[in-house]
């Protein structure tokens, strides 16, 4: 199965300063481990929400809202698309990620409709 991991890193999501080189090395080590295990299909980081936009739909009306957005806890700072055999496997991998704050969300991607 495929799962999407949304990294809601809390305050770090909006931080202007990049992580320390040590922290970066830790992330990269973890990422490498995932790649070696054949788990990672895709990965990416997002710019702070100050550069983001939102479009609200209300019937025919579309309202554009400029960032930054206030609900810091819910802001996604990065994502992974993983190939795993179960949600439990994704959980076990995610628990090993070198983060000390934030909430990470695992969601299964709908695949092979009609099979």
């Amino acid at each position, binding site marked *: *199965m495929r799962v999407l991991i949304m990294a809601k890193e809390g305050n770090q999501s909006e931080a202007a300063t990049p992580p320390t080189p040590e922290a970066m090395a830790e992330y990269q080590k973890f990422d490498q481990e995932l790649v*070696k295990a054949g788990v990672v299909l895709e990965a990416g980081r997002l710019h702070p929400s100050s550069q983001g936009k939102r479009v609200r739909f209300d019937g025919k009306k579309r309202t554009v809202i400029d960032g930054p957005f206030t609900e810091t806890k819910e802001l996604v700072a990065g994502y992974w*698309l993983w*190939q795993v055999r179960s949600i*439990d*496997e994704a*959980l076990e991998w995610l628990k090993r990620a070198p983060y000390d704050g934030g909430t990470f969300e695992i969601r299964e991607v709908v695949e*092979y409709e009609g*099979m």
Partner: protein
Amino acid sequence: MRSSSTRACDGALAIGPRTGDAPARPGRRETAATEAHRAIEAIWRIESARLIAGLARVVGDIGTAEELAQDALVAALEQWPAAGVPERPGAWLMGTAKHLAIDLIRRRKTLERKHEEIGRDVERAQEGLDLDTAIDDEVGDDLLGLIFTACHPVLSKDARVALTLRVLGGLTTEEIARGFLVPVSTIAQRIVRARRTLAEAHVRFEVPGGAERVARLASVLEVIYLIFNEGYSATAGKDWVRPALCEDALRLGRILAELAPAEPEVHGLVALMEIQASRLGARVGPSGEPVLLLDQDRARWDRLLIRRGLAALERAERLGGALGPYALQAAIAACHARAPTAADTDWRRIVALYDAVVQLAPSPVVELNRAVAVGMAFGPAAGLELADALVAEPSLKSYHLLPAVRGDLLRKLGRSEEARAEFERGASLTENLRERELMQRRAAECAADGMAG
């Protein structure tokens, strides 16, 4: 001495949480135990290959290594539900297995001293006593060694497939049996026999070099592609595709690509599988019927897998030299992936690529595929001429796709009655229900042509 514990834990993961001990009313303890059990299962999937590989290097054979890893798993199943899952579960399993390995080596050594024999095993045992550094070393080569051993040519293809899924994929015997629609006992026997064959042939746990490496790598790639193909067009059963097997094969391929990044054919195989897998969702119609490549809704092709496949193909090409058979087939798959519609397909390039495959790895099946491409590039008569030449080929005697291809070409030439007979013959040759239905439908269409004409 060890066999009894092995038997007990062979199905360790399959028996589920020990509900027998649980109170009738689900309580907190049971929930915790269930959770722990699910976590153990997932951790096993993640850690087992590395665990077995690390142990195999020390004890010298994968049979013993697997038993030790399984014993560590049993210890986890006994302790974690009550004590909780340790913070570093992989390290815990490795530590436990390591102690078991040291015990085993000491026992072997004592036995050998008794017999006053000095052999390779003693040397290995002495090396083995420095296990802490030995096992904690870089695991990449160990994993590679594990793949090469599980895919050793001394084993039958079936045995290689079962052993690879078991020790590298972390699948249980039950899961492998389900994947291949055979009884659990069949897979269990294959694995036991495979271990015995490896032991009897004194297969050393190592990464082969030189000319041997080329041949052995070919065997590894063949096994992975066999697993993929069984998922991509199941040879038996009611489902035409079984995506889980494709995913297992893809994962093995991706792991191998990281372990042996300088091997162009590894990237070639990964590219081929990624691109073929991109069509999985489009290959099956609403009621489970097969949809052939040229009839597929290309909007349903998985762009992510296509992109990954094209990147892997590029990696193979960048490594230089002439493309190998897998990379060439990936290049053919890429031609389809790049064409926005079926009509845009560059069939002449596909024919040229098949020519190259025929040069490198001639086989009747490749010739048949080439006949299809020639039929598309230069007209059905040219294709049929090539396909007809394959009728006498003994290895294609019961291959259902030969009559299917001939039927298709004959129908395009307006020879409906002959085409109908071919599709009927194809239907009678396949064990897969969905494929049989497809060919029966095509036979019926030909019969209708005949009446209309």
